[in-house]
C-alpha cells in the first residue's frame, strides 16, 4: 500500500498506471512474506576486494560454511568504495526481503552504522568485523546486530616483536615497517611494538618507517635502510606480511635473506612459506577463513533461534578473536592443514575463539 500512496502523490499519472503501480506494490509487499517465510535465508558476505590474499581466503571460508550448512551464499565487493558497499547491501536486503544473514567487513569505520541500521530495519541478522564506531553497540540493536569481532592489534604487534627479539638473542638493532599511518590496525600494532620495546631495553629501534602495507614500497625502503644502518640491522618488524615479504626480497638481493629474521602479521602464503624456510621468524593471523565462515555461522544461528543474542554475555557481542601464531614450531602442521588443504572447522563452536570483550 505504501507504494500506491507514493504514486498518487507524484502527480501526473494516468489512472491505469496508478492501478498497475498499486497492484505491483501490493504484490511485492505481500508475495515475499508468503513465499519467503519458508525459504532458507541467504548468506551474504560483504568485503573490500578480491584482489588481496586476505579477503580471497575470507571468501573461501564463507563458501565453505555455506556449503556445510547447505545455504545459498552471495559475496558483495565494495572495491574500497563505502557508498557502493552500503548500496549493495541495501539492494540485497530488498531482494531477499530481509531474509538474510550478513557478515560484513565494513570498508570504513562510519559505514557500520548505516549497514546495521538497514539490516535491523529489514529484519536481517548482521555480524560486523574490524570496523565500527565506538558508540555503536550490538546490544542496542537486539536481536538483529548479533556480534562485532575484532583482533587485538596491540597483542599481535607485541607477540611478533617478542618472538623477533628472542630470535636475535635479546639484543641489537631492529627496523620497523609500519602500515598506512591513519589506520587503526597500523596504530595498534605499533603500540604493541612500543610496549615490547619498553620491556626490552637491550633492543634498539633504529628506525620506524611507513611502507603503506605494500611489498613494493617495503622493497625500496628496505634497500635504503640497509644503506643507512648496514649490518646494525639484526631483525625486521613488519606490521603486515606483504611488507615483510617486500623487505625479504630486498634482503635477498643483498644475499642477506635468512640471516636477518623478519616477523609480520596476516599469515599470507608467502609468509608461511618463508617461516618454513626460516627467512621469517613468525607471522600471526586472524585466520580470515574462520572470520569468513564463523561470522556467518554466528549470524545464522541467531537467526534460526539457536541462541538469543539479547541473552548472550557482553564478551559474545563485542569480542577479540584469537589470533593464530605461526612460527617455526607449528608451521609444518599449519601448512598441511591450512595451505595444502582447506582447513576443517567445527562450525558449531561459535564462541571457541573468544579471548575477551573489546576494550572500551
Amino acid at each position, binding site marked *: 500500500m505504501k507504494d500506491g500512496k507514493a504514486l498518487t502523490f507524484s502527480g501526473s499519472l494516468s489512472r491505469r498506471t496508478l492501478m498497475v503501480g498499486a497492484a505491483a506494490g501490493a504484490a511485492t509487499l505481500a508475495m515475499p512474506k508468503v513465499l519467503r517465510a519458508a525459504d532458507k535465508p541467504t548468506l551474504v558476505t560483504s568485503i573490500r576486494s578480491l584482489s588481496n590474499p586476505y579477503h580471497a581466503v575470507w571468501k573461501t571460508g564463507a563458501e565453505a560454511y555455506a556449503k556445510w550448512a547447505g545455504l545459498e551464499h552471495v559475496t558483495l565487493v565494495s572495491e574500497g568504495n563505502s557508498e557502493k558497499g552500503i548500496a549493495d547491501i541495501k539492494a540485497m536486503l530488498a531482494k531477499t526481503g530481509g531474509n538474510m544473514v550478513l557478515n560484513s567487513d565494513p570498508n570504513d569505520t562510519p559505514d557500520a552504522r548505516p549497514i546495521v541500521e538497514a539490516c535491523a530495519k529489514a529484519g536481517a541478522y548482521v555480524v560486523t568485523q574490524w570496523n565500527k564506531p565506538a558508540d555503536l553497540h550490538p546490544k542496542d540493536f537486539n536481536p538483529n546486530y548479533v556480534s562485532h569481532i575484532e583482533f587485538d592489534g596491540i597483542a599481535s604487534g607485541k607477540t611478533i616483536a617478542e618472538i623477533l627479539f628472542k630470535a636475535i638473542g635479546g639484543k641489537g638493532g631492529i627496523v620497523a615497517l609500519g602500515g598506512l599511518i591513519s589506520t587503526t590496525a597500523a596504530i595498534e600494532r605499533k603500540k604493541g611494538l612500543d610496549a615490547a620495546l619498553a620491556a626490552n631495553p637491550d633492543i634498539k629501534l633504529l628506525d620506524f618507517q611507513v611502507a603503506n602495507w605494500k611489498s613494493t614500497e617495503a622493497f625500496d625502503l628496505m634497500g635504503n635502510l640497509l644503506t643507512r644502518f648496514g649490518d646494525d640491522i639484526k631483525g625486521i618488524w613488519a606490521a603486515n606480511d606483504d611488507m615483510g615479504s617486500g623487505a625479504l*626480497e630486498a634482503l635477498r638481493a643483498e644475499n642477506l635473506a635468512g640471516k636477518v629474521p623478519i616477523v609480520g602479521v596476516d599469515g599470507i*602464503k608467502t609468509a608461511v612459506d618463508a617461516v618454513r624456510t626460516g627467512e621469517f621468524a613468525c607471522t600471526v593471523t586472524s585466520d580470515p577463513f574462520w572470520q569468513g565462515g564463523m561470522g556467518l555461522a554466528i549470524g545464522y544461528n541467531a537467526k534460526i533461534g539457536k541462541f538469543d543474542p539479547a541473552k548472550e554475555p557482553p564478551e559474545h557481542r563485542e569480542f577479540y578473536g584469537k589470533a593464530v601464531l605461526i612460527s617455526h614450531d607449528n608451521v609444518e602442521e599449519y601448512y598441511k592443514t591450512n595451505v595444502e588443504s582447506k582447513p576443517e572447522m567445527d562450525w558449531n563452536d561459535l564462541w571457541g575463539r573468544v579471548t575477551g570483550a573489546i576494550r572500551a
Partner: protein
Amino acid sequence: MTIDTEPLKSVSDIERTTLMTFLPGRIAGMLGGRRWRSLAPLAVLVVLCVLITIANPNFIELRNLVRLANSAAVPLTLAMGLTFIILMGSIDLSVEGTLSVAAMVVVLLAANDSNGNDYGWWAVLAAIASGTIMGLASGLVQTMLRIPSFMATLGMWFIGLGLSVYMLGGSAIRLNDASIRDLALYRFLGLPLAVWVALGAFVLAAIIQYHTRLGRHILAIGGDEDVTKLSGVNVVRVRIAAFALAGFFFGIAGVLAAAQLGQSHAVIGDGRLFAAVTAVVVGGTALTGGEGGVVNTAVGVLIVTVLANGMILLGISPYIQQTVQGLMIIAAVALSLDRARLKIVK
C-alpha cells in the same frame, strides 16, 4: 571612449614574469636563459646528491649507489614509455594496469606455485607482448573511437587490473623460475641484471627518440598536431605506434617488478603511475607536449629515487616525508619549466 588596453596588458605580463618566476627567472637570465634552464633538472640532481652526501657520507658508498640503481630500474623503464606519450601531449594512465598484466602473465607462465606451467623465457616474451598489446589497444581506442587518451587509458587501466585480479584469483603467486629471478638477483659487473635491462630500455628509447622518424613525429605531434598533419604525417599511425611502444616498456617493467619481488599480485603496480608521471615532469618534459625527452626523464627518475633514498638516510620522519617530497617536486618544476613563455597556466 577608446581605452588603450595595451599598456595594461603588458603591465600584467611584466608582473607575471617578474613576480611568479622572479628567482628562477633571474638565475636563468644571469646564466644564459634557456640553455641553463634545460640543465636545471641535472643541477637539482647534483645539488641534491651533494647535500645528502654532506649530511650522510654513506650516500656515495658504492653499495648505496648500486641500491639506488636497483630501485630506479622499474621506474626508469616505466617512465621511458610514458615519456613518449607525454611528449605527444597525451597521457597514459594505464601504467599500473599494464604493468600488473605483464607481471601476471610472466608469473603464471613461468614456474610458479599455482599451476604447472614452466615456459621459462617464453613467459617473459609473452609478458612483454601482452604489455604491447595493451598499449596497442589504448592507441586504437583513442584514435579509432576518438576517445581522449585520458579516458581511453583510464579504461585500459581498469581492464588490466580486473584481468589480473581474475587470473590471480586475488592472491599473491610466487615466481619460482630461477633464471627469471636472476634478473634481480644475479649481478653483472656489480649491478643486478635488472639495472642493465633498464639501461638497455633507456638506450633503446633514446635511439627511438633522437634517431628514428617515429621519435621525431611524436615530438612534432606534441609541438603542433595540426601542422604535423598538414606536413603529411600519418598522425593516427604515429599515435597508435607510440601507445604500443609505451605498452612495450610497461611490459618490460612488469617483468622486472615480478622478478624483484619474486611474486605477482594484482596490486603490484600500486602507486607506480604517480611516481612515473612525477619523474617525467620533474625531469623537465612539459605535460603540454613537444618539449623534453627521454634524457630529461632519466634525470627525473634519478631525482625522485635519490630523494626517497636521501630522506631515509637523513632520518626524516615518515610523518613528514610526503610533505618534503611535494615541496621538492614543486621546486624542481619551478626551476626547470620556462614558465615565462607560458601564456596560459591551466
